[in-house]
């Protein structure tokens, strides 16, 4: 069938596999669905990696913001303030310009040459920005949860002789996650939505390898008809959002496993642009 050929040609176009040239005219619905779907791979890539790495950094930042010593607290507060207070769009531009300025031949650190060239490419540069951005937003969520860990839990931990790292790992951290999880689910969804900004903000789509929205706007520009490609992106993202909600709800149930009737349903409240 013709559509199967199209899928073979363009199914992995966004990562450089298959047909080199994008369709130029006579766009079929199949081509639009395939190519936009192939672009979605980038959204998933950015989303999963930024979220996965950001989770740990966010925990560290939240603990740092709650620290007594201003030497630790102040940098964490400033980091969170800068990344939450400014638009992601500007952060992308700024980071791209900064990465371009870095010397092409790499930076010498302790005799080792650190490659910097790949930072100007979207797959790495944009990932760094998204990672820092989601860390800041998640850190604020975790910080709020950390402050509402019940006093009784901490006293019980003291009574059991838990302290320091063990108290954090076994009492504070799980409770913090339990409290933060509904908001963190929302944050995860926004992050996936925010990945659509990457190729509209400085980072060039090299060899026309872009994300879902990049291809959608390509089609909209060529056909001058926004009523086909954008609804396709919308449907893809609704599906992606449902998957994210499903995964996070599973984790939520696991986190609240020992609390009967406590596994509250996660309510999704859209918050969107950063």
């Amino acid at each position, binding site marked *: 069938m013709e559509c199967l050929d199209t899928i073979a040609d363009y199914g992995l176009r966004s990562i450089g596999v298959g047909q080199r040239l994008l369709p130029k005219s006579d766009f079929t619905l199949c081509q639009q669905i395939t190519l936009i779907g192939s672009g979605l791979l980038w959204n998933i890539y950015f989303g999963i990696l930024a979220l996965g790495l950001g989770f740990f950094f966010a925990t560290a930042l939240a603990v740092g913001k709650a620290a007594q010593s201003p030497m630790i607290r102040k940098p964490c507060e400033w980091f969170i303030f*800068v990344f939450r*207070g400014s638009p992601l769009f*500007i952060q992308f531009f700024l980071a791209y310009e900064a990465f371009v300025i870095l010397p092409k031949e790499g930076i010498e650190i302790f005799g080792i040459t650190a490659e910097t060239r790949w930072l100007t490419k979207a797959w790495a540069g944009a990932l760094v920005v998204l990672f820092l951005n989601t860390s800041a937003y998640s850190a604020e969520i975790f910080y709020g949860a950390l402050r509402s860990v019940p006093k009784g839990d901490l006293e019980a931990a003291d009574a059991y002789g838990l302290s320091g790292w063990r108290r954090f790992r076994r009492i504070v951290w799980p409770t913090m996650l339990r409290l933060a999880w509904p908001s963190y689910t929302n944050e995860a969804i926004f992050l996936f939505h925010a990945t659509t900004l990457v190729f509209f903000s400085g980072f060039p789509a090299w060899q026309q390898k872009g994300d879902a929205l990049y291809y959608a706007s390509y089609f909209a520009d060529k056909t001058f008809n*926004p*009523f086909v490609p954008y609804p396709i992106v919308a449907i893809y993202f609704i599906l992606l959002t449902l998957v994210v909600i499903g995964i996070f709800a599973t984790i939520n149930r696991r986190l609240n496993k020992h609390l009967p009737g406590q596994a509250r349903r996660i309510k999704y409240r859209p918050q969107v*642009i950063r």
Partner: protein
Amino acid sequence: MFGYCTDPSALEGLAWLACYLTNGKHLTAYASIGTVLLLLAITAPTALTFGFVGASAARSRIAPLRWLGQGYTSIVRGVPDIVFFLFFVIALDQAFEWMRHQVLCPDWNQPVRQGNDFVVCAAAKLPLSTSPQWIHEVYGFFLAVLTFAIVFGAFAANVLFGAMRAVPKAQLETAEAYGMTERQTFWRILVPQMWVFALPGLSNLWMILVKATPLLFLLGVEDIVYWARELGGTKGRIFDYPHPDWRLWYFLALLVFYLSLTQVSEVVLARLTRKLSRGQATFAGEAQRKAAT
């Protein structure tokens, strides 16, 4: 700007910088900050109106109206809003042109969509091809504002719908018991009380709106992002003020501008929340009452 700026090549140091930052193009760029503020000033009330209408419709007892309202409030869930921005700018433009086409050229017999083209008669073009440049710019800005208002109106509708439901039921029942009509209950009891419940969501929305303004650039308006790229790019010898690639500094300035904008908003909104909580039967209102006595 300054008298000594007549020969830029002879200037040095601070004097050069002062002249550079006040040349014609920079002044235009500063004016584009006004564009951003204008967008905020127009969009916020418009979106709030859209949201209010949407939320009221979602509560309506007439089913089609309710579906319309609920559909509006839920379009923004699950889909990145930037998709809506890119979509509405073209879709609205085509919708306006199509409507004018229907009215102005009734005897036009060709289809509007011909292959990859969208063709309307010359009289229906928006703006008319004979109109001056500023009309084109204003029309582009108007489309952007409308797009922002539609998208943020949906968010606001979400918030207001929740706030309307948060008003204690007993208040509405009391109003009914006093013999108020449905309309009176809505305007005299529900609407005045809902704001304090809506405020956290609305202030959040305001922050998001502020942080969404650089997207104007994507909608084709010459905003501050456009100027930062334009002015920061490498300027060779043929320019009065040659300089290497300074885009990093321009974007850094933008970052500081947005940080201060969000910071100021936060302070103002915190004050507003305190003010609105006064005398309300909520936790914050109760705390204020106790502190006063």
